[in-house]
C-alpha cells in the first residue's frame, strides 16, 4: 500500500545517496539545464544549492523562480529500469537571505564539506528551492506525486 511514510523514506534514501542533481531553469527564450550539488532540509521541503551570481541559471532564477530538478540513483545499467528511483522536483528558487544564510550553509556544507571555499566565496549565491511537489518514479513506470501543502508563493 502506498503511503506518505514509505515515500518520504524513499526520498530520504535517494537524497542521502546522491550528491548531484540536474536542474532546469527558465528564461524567456527557453530552458537551461545544468548539474548542481545539493542538500535537502530535514523536513524535505527545501533544497539548497550554490551558484556564482554570474551564471545563466542564476540570471534565469532571478527572471523566473520556477525550477525543476532531477535526482536519481540509476547506475547506467539495464537493471536501473527496475531498481532505480527517479525524483523530479518542482519548486521555486530564491537566494537565501542574510539572516538564513548561516543555517543554509551548514546544511549544504554538512553534505559537501569539500566545497567550503566555493560556498564562502563572495560571488557565490546560496539558493533555496522551495519544493512544491515531488514526482517519484519506481519500477520504471510507477509514478506517485507528493505535493507540499501550502507551498511558499514566490510569484513575482
Amino acid at each position: 500500500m502506498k503511503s506518505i511514510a514509505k515515500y518520504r523514506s524513499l526520498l530520504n534514501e535517494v537524497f542521502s545517496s546522491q550528491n548531484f542533481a540536474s536542474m532546469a531553469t527558465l528564461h524567456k527564450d527557453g530552458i537551461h539545464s545544468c548539474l548542481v550539488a545539493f542538500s535537502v532540509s530535514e523536513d524535505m521541503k527545501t533544497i539548497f544549492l550554490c551558484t556564482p551570481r554570474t551564471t545563466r541559471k542564476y540570471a534565469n532564477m532571478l527572471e523566473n523562480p520556477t525550477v525543476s530538478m532531477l535526482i536519481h540513483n540509476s547506475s547506467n545499467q539495464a537493471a536501473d529500469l527496475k531498481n532505480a528511483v527517479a525524483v523530479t522536483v518542482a519548486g521555486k528558487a530564491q537566494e537565501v537571505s542574510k539572516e538564513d544564510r548561516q543555517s543554509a550553509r551548514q546544511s549544504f556544507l554538512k553534505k559537501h564539506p569539500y566545497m567550503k571555499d566555493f560556498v564562502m566565496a563572495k560571488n557565490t549565491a546560496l539558493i533555496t528551492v522551495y519544493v512544491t511537489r515531488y514526482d517519484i518514479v519506481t519500477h520504471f513506470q510507477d509514478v506517485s506525486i507528493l505535493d507540499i501543502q501550502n507551498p511558499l508563493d514566490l510569484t513575482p
Partner: protein
Amino acid sequence: MTLVIPLAQIDGSQGHLVGGKAVNLSRLTNAGHAVPRGLCITTEAYLEFTRETGLANRIDLEYNRLNLDEMRWEEIWDMALRIRNMFLTAPFPNSLYENIVQSISTLDCSGPVAVRSSSPQEDSSESSFAGLHESFLNIQGLDDILKHVKLVWASLWSDGAVLYRNELEMSPRDSAMAVIVQELVEGEVSGLVFSRSPNSQSHIMIEAVYGLNEGLVDGIIMPDRWTIDHASRSIISHDSADRTHCITKAESGTQSIPLTAKKIASAPLTDDEVLRVAELGVCLEDEFGAPQDVEWTVCDGQLMVLQTRPITTITRHQDSTDKPWSKTDKRPWYLSLKRSFDNLKTLRDKVENTILPGMEKDALAMDAIGLSGLSKEELAKEIKYRKERHAHWNDVYWQDCIPLAHGVRLFGQLYNDALSPEDPYEFIHLLGGTGMAAVERNQSLIVLASKLQESPSLRMAIEAAETTDETDLFYSELRTFVDDYGDQTFKAVRFFQDQDSLVNMLMEMALNLKNQVWNEPLKTAHGEDEFINAFPVAKQDMARELLDLGRASYRLRDDDNIYIAKVDAQVRKAIGEARKRLISEGVKLKPTVSVDEVVAHLNHAVKPSTDAPQELLIDEPIEAQTKSIIPRKLNTCELGFVLRARQLLGQPAGPGIATGPARVITSSDDLFKLKSGEILVCDSIEPTMTFVVSLVGGIVERRGGMLIHGAIIAREYGIPCVTGVADVTSLVSTGELITVDGYLGIVTLAEN
C-alpha cells in the same frame, strides 16, 4: 568457457557447471552401471545464451516488474509464459550454436534423445525441484533438440520453480540451468526405487509401469508398488495397480496407449526382477552414501539407470485443512493444479455433462418450490438445505472447475511451442467467440436496449411510469430475460430484486446504441489453420483436440460462475422470503446477519422482543462473496505532504488505449450508475457482473492475470484492460479522468 562436457568426462567438482543430476550420471557411468550415453550443456552455455541475446536483462525486467510476494498465481504463470516465449523466440548466437551442434554430432547418436534439466540447485537433499523443471523425451533432429534445450532453460523460470525458489529464499539471479542431452532408451518396463521407503526407513519401495517412466513421474499412470525389507531383501507386499495404459515413444514426443490384455493381467516386474531393482537401489545408496531415489528402465533385459538423486529430507508445508483452496495463500495449491491432456478431457466431460447440469437442475428444483406456501419451520429447513447445496457446489467448483482452467494454459503453451509467436498471448484469439453464457446474457440485454432505442414512445411511457400496450410487451420481454438470467448480477443484488436499476441501465444502453459507442463482442476466431498446419499430419488430430479442449476450458471457466450463481440466487430467494416474513412480524432488519441466525429466528429459537423491534442482520450467504471490497483508505495527508498516484503499474490484459472518467465499483449501486465510456475500476470482475461491459470504455482490475474473467471478457469485447493494479480502488476515485493503456499495462491519472 566450458560449454559442453560429455557425461563420462564430468568430475565431481563440476556440479556448478553441470548440476547434480549430470554429476551423478557421470559417477554412475564411471562406476560401471548401465547409463544411456549423453552430454551436458553447461550453465555457462545458459549464461552465454542469455547474455548474448539480451535475455538476461529482459528476464530481469520481467521478473522485477511487480513484487513476487504480491502476485497471484495467475500473474506468476503469465510471467513464466512471457519468459518462456522469450527463450522460444530468441535465436542461438552463432558461436554457441556451432559449439553445441558440433558436440551433439560427436555424441554419435542419430536416434531420438531425452533432453533433461540439470540445475545446480535442484535435487540436493535440502530441496527438490522434481517436476518443476522440464525434461523432454523422444526429441529428434538438431533443430528440435536445440529448441528443447531452450525450453529446459526456460523452465528455470516456470511458475512452480519461481515460487519454490522464492520459498527457499534462493536468488533467481544467481540461478542457471545445465541441460543433459542423452540417448533415449525405450524400456519395456520403467520405474522408481527408493532405497529407503518414504513410509519406513527399514523398507525399500519400488514403483513400476509398462513403457516409459514419464507417465509415472507425471502421475498419469498408476504404478504397481512393492515394499521390500531393507535388511533381508524379502518382498513384504505388492500393491497391484489398475493397469490400463502405458506411455510409449510416438512419432515425436510420447503417447499414452492402451495395454494389451496380457500386460493388464500381469505385473510389470517378476519377483526376481523386483529384487534386482531393490539391489540396484541399495547399491546406489552405498555408492552415494545416502538413501537414493532412482529412476530406472529395463531395455532388452538390461537394467539401466536413468537418474539418481538423494531422497529429499525437506517436506513442503502441509496445511491441516482438507480443503487446500480455503488457505489464505492459495498459490502453492493453484500451482499443483497442472493436469495432463487426458485428465483434462475427463474433467471437461465431468464439468460439462455432470457438474453444470447438476447445478442447473438443483437451482430449477429449488425454484419450483413455492416458498410462500411453506410454514416457518419448513422455510428454515429449506434455507438450510439450500445453503448446504451451495456449499456442496462451491467445493465442486474449487475441486473440479478451477483445475479445468489449466486447459487454456496447456493449449497456450502448445500453441507457443508450435508457432513461437512474438505475442505469447496470440493463442487467445483462437479461444474467443465460443458462446460464453455471460456473453449470451449480455447480447440479450442489447436486444432489450434496442427496443428502447427504436421507440421514443416506449422510452417516454417508461419514464412517465405509464402503462401502455408497448410497455406491457416490453415488461413481458423483460420478465422473460429476468427468468432466464435474473440470478446473474453483482454480489448480493440480483436482477429479480432490482428491476428499476435494470431498466435504468437499459435506458443508458439505448442511448449508446443510438450513438453507436457500445462495444460488440468479437465474433470471429482466426489463425486456426496456421495452428493446425504447424503440426505434422500425424499430430494434427491431437492439435485439433487440444484446441477444442482449450476452447471448452476458456468457456467453462466463465460459465461455471454463472451456473453456481443460479444456486446462490436460490439461497438468496429463500432468505428474502424469510426476511419478508420476519419484517411483517415486527423484526427490525439490518443488512447483515448469519444464515444460521435467520434459521434460528424462523424456528423460534430466538424470540423477538415485544417491547422494541429486534434488529436482525441478514448477511450474504456465500462466503466467497462476503469479502469486503470497501477500499482501504489511503493516508493522503501527513506532515504537510499530500500523496496521490499519477501512474499505476499493472499487466497489459487487453490491447488498446481508452480515456474516460473512472467508475470505481464498491457496491452494486456503483455498477448500475455506470455511464457509457466510463472506465470500470474494480477489485475483480465476476462473470455475474459483466453485463455492464458493453458500456465501458476500459477496465482496470486489482486482481491480476491474463486469463481472469475481466481480461477474458475485455478481449471478447475488444476493450482496453489492465489487471493486477495494486490498491487501485483506493488510489482512483469515481469521476477522476484516467487513461488505460492496455498495451503497456499502465493506468495514468489526469493531472487536473
